[in-house]
């Protein structure tokens, strides 16, 4: 199993109810697998215009294979400026 940390901002934090969360995922899980899991647990994510992921401080696509210890950042639609 992979142990990862979630870090959530903006409306994503409201949806999961906290800034950080720990999660276990099967080995070889991709960000797409995480997306599916999140949508199951928190159907409100389906209402968003988009949900992107970063690992540490870089955007990653859904094909990214999660590594044990990764910090995965949930990035709902940004609205800076």
């Amino acid at each position, binding site marked *: 199993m992979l142990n990862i940390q979630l870090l959530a901002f903006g409306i994503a934090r409201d949806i999961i109810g906290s800034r950080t969360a720990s999660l276990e995922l099967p080995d070889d899980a991709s960000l797409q697998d995480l997306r599916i899991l999140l949508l199951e647990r928190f159907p409100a994510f389906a209402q968003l*215009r988009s949900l992107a992921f970063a690992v540490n401080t870089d955007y990653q696509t859904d094909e990214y294979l999660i590594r044990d210890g990764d910090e995965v950042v949930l990035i709902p639609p*940004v609205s800076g400026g």
Partner: protein
Amino acid sequence: MIDVRLLATALEDDACLSYVASEADGGTVLFKGTIRNRTAGKPVLRLTFEAYDAMAVREMESIAAEGLEKWRCHRVAIHHRTGTLLPGDTAVLIAVAAPHRQAAFDCCQFCIDTLKLRVPIWKKEVFADGEVWVAAHP
């Protein structure tokens, strides 16, 4: 040369303009984004900006570097607020200096357009009857 700052205190126009000033450049463009007192006709009480600090700074630096290179500009400053802002407060300042004006206009516009697309900063508008994360829903 690039100056990127994510600040919890009031932004100063002059800090950006002074940073980019140079006798080698003839054109400077400053974009200043401020808090409007209404959204779709509804009075805004205040806004809160939340940022994923480390990544926001990295993304702003990367946007500034991309703009500098693409338009051969010399200096870019991007300053962005976090925390709670009131109508009239400055949310973002982007200053670009270049030998000639077209490059400065194009680079400045690229920086603000791209910042709004990909820098991990989120704003919540607070109205008398509730709060809304801007642009979160279709």
